[in-house]
C-alpha cells in the first residue's frame, strides 16, 4: 500500500517571467506585497 509519484522539475513561473523580461511588469501589476502574505494567518487589525 504505497505509491511512488515521479516528480518533474521545471523552471518556476518567476524564472520564466524573468527570462521573458516580464517579471518587473508583472510584479508592478500584481502588488508585490501580496507575496509576503501567504503564511500570515491573522494580521492584527490596522496592519498596513
Amino acid at each position, binding site marked *: 500500500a504505497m505509491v511512488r509519484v515521479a516528480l*518533474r522539475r521545471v523552471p518556476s513561473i518567476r524564472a520564466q517571467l524573468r527570462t521573458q523580461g516580464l517579471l518587473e511588469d508583472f510584479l508592478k501589476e500584481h502588488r508585490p506585497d501580496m507575496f509576503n502574505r501567504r503564511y500570515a494567518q491573522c494580521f492584527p487589525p490596522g496592519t498596513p
Partner: protein
Amino acid sequence: SLRLRRSSEKIYNFMDAQYYGEISVGSPPQNFSVIFDTGSADLWVPSSYCVSQACAFHRRFKAFESKTFQHDGRSFGIHYGSGHLLGVMGRDTVKIGDMTILNQEFGESVYEPGSVFVTAKFDGVLGLAYQSLAEILGNPVFDNMLAQKIVDQPVFSFYLSRRTRTSNPQGELLLGGIDETMYNGSINWLPVSVKRYWQVEMDSVVVQGAGSFCPSGCHAILDTGTSLIGGPTRDVMRLQQLIGATPTNNGEFVIDCTRLSSLPRITFILGGKEYTLTSEQYVRKEAFGINDLCFSGFQAFDIISPEGPMWILGDVFLTEFYSIFDRGLDRIGLAQA
C-alpha cells in the same frame, strides 16, 4: 474575509513552485499535473468551463464525461492580488498511481486571473497540509487516503533532486512509506508544533563566522510548494548582506557567481541537529542568455503568527534533505538526501 485572505497567500507562492507530478480525476480518468504542496491543503484543477486565457494552456476537467462525478453546489474563491480565482466544488474519484481515492472533494477553477497560470507548467495543486488549512470543505486528499485505509503507513516522503539534467527521477513523492534508498544516515524526527502547516520548532540559524539568527528559537514550515528559504525581513536582509547579495528591481537578490567559493556556510539547527547548506546549495544558478545568473536562495517573508517569527524551508532546503511527513505521530523526519 480571513478565509479568503488565507487562501490568497497560497496562490501567489506558486510563482516559485517547481516540482509537479501526475494524478487523474474522474471515471474514466482525466489526467492532470499538479504541485504536491505541503503548504496548502486543497485539491483544485481547471474546469472545462473555465473561460480564462490561462485555462486554454492547461488540461481541463470535464465533469460531464465522468460517471462518478458528484456536483457539490458550493463555490469557492481564492483572492489573488488584482483578481480572484473562482471555482465550483465537486466530488469524484481521484487516482494517484495505482491508488484510488473515492468521493474526494476538490475544486474546479472556472476563472483564473492574470498571467501567472498562463506560464505555469502545472494544471493544478494538490495540498498535503493539515485539514485545518483547507479552504474547500471536506477532507484533504491524504486525509481521505487515511480514512479509506488506502495506505498502510500514515506517512509520505519527498525526494527532490536539484540536478535535473542528469538525475532520474528529478523528484519522487512516496505516499504511504519511506524510501530508504533515497537518504544516507539516520532520520532526525521533529514534532509538529502546530497542526496546520507542517510546522516545527527551529533552534537557530547560524552563519559561518558571522553570528546567528533566532538565537532563542523560532518556528519553521517545511513547504514543497515554494523554492526558496524565507525568513523575517530583518534577519534575511542581514543574511543577504553577509553573503554579499544585492537587490534587483524585482525584489530578488543576486550574487556574483565567481564569489561562490568564498561565501559562508549557513546552518539550520532543528531538534539539536545541524543542517548545513553550502553556497553552492543555497545559491540558485539560472541560465540567462549565454551567462548564468546567481540568485540568493533566501527571501524575506514577514509572518505574523501566534508562534512568533517564522521561517519557510522550501526546495532550496528540501533538495538537500530527504523529508518524511508523518501524520500518525505528527512529526517530520529529515535525513541527508
